[in-house]
């Protein structure tokens, strides 16, 4: 599982107190160091806002570097655009080859623009949880098990994932 978080902002009592200078973070669960984001020192905050995915301007800006480098496998080659969220797994209910399910969610052009806004109040541990189980329970894996290009389903699933950040 990998996904992009962009425009990460900290707020305190409704006011922006910090905007991360690094605009895009690729969080890769096979590479746990990417899952910790260093916080600025001496900033109180009670709320976090970010986009899940990559904005449309960036999607049409050609070859980019850093976390946006296409070597990370988060860029579609045959039809331009970033994959905002990628999850692959196995479930017995999937009547697919080796029971595999794959969701490569992205798309920046309306009506299938799939980037999501996330806005969360934060706990004392300053940890954000993505409840993947709740996401998977929210869809019927036997029917929906492969989404690999920008379409209605990709928007729907992206929206569902965004709701499962806690």
């Amino acid at each position, binding site marked *: 599982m990998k996904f992009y978080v962009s425009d990460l902002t900290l707020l305190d009592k409704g006011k922006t107190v910090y905007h991360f200078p690094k605009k895009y973070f690729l969080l890769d669960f096979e590479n746990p160091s990417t899952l910790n984001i260093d916080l600025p020192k001496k900033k109180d905050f009670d709320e976090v806002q970010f986009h899940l995915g990559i904005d449309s301007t960036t999607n049409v800006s*050609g*070859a980019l570097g850093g976390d946006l480098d*296409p070597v990370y496998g988060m860029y579609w*080659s045959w039809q331009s655009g970033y994959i905002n969220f990628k999850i692959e797994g196995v479930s017995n209910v999937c009547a697919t080859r080796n029971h595999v399910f794959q969701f490569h969610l992205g798309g920046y052009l309306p009506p299938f623009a799939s980037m999501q806004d996330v806005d969360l109040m934060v706990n004392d541990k300053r940890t954000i949880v993505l409840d993947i189980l709740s996401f998977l329970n929210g869809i019927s894996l036997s029917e929906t098990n492969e989404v690999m290009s920008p379409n209605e389903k990709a928007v729907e699933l992206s929206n569902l994932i965004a709701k499962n950040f806690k």
Partner: protein
Amino acid sequence: MRKVIALTCLLGIGLILSCSIHRNLFSTPSGFPKPKYNFENNALTTEKIELGRALFFDPILSADNTISCASCHSPYNAFAHTDHDLSHGIKDQIGKRNAPALMNLAWHSSMMWDGAVNHLDVQALAPISNVKEMGENISSVVDKLRKSKIYPPLFEKAFHDTGITGEKVLKVISQFELTLVSADSKYDKIKRGAAKFSEQETKGYLLFQKNCNSCHAEPLFSTYEFKNNGLPVDTTLNDFGRYAITKRSEDSLTFKIPSLSNLSFTYPYMHDGRFKKLGQVLNHYASERAESRTLAPELKSPIPLNSNEKADLIAFCTL
């Protein structure tokens, strides 16, 4: 051995030109509109262009090191592929479209016959990853380049820092491609006042302006918009063009208008290379267009062309 020689030449050129880096590496030919490509994000330098050229001709970009970009886009044919109607990739696999001539890419608003790719810089990802073309992926290309003997120093020289990334690979390939500007044909010379049309070419030019220029607009000979020019669907391919990208019914069977520069070198013609000769192309416009909901309005009725007029048009188109 050939490789070694190519490399020393390359370094030679690098050395000679390094003292004139600010020389104009790309200029808009007179009469051309402003390029669409944003050079600010990828400023051309001689080192980067030469590195891009080396990669373009190097089969290291393919999975089994057999196919380079130039295998399909040959420098002898305006960087198109003339032996095949549909492109040939690794392990003799056949793709679903004809390889277009690469030229004046700085003016294209999108890449590919259907505009699937939105920016020149990311175009190379498509052939590199296509299992029927180069069957590779960019991260393994970067690994191979890092391990090669020749590339790390060339990248360092071009970027003034160490390390090869996907971004750098893609950008230098773009740089080379951007230099493929076609602006020195007889047509261009005539426009600059350095040559004159023959009588037949003048007649052809008038026919062209009347019947073709709305899509194949001068001086680039394309607006690069998507249109349906009435080719009947090849049912072995079922290629609906732009529709596959936008899923909008009004885009069904529309393809990016190709430029008509260098036509004598870019046969076979059309997205699937169905025509070998320009005579067939003109027969299509004169009498063989297929009716369909998305057929371009200006082609709703056939373009009347007698055989003399066809010859005149061909004379102009192959100037």
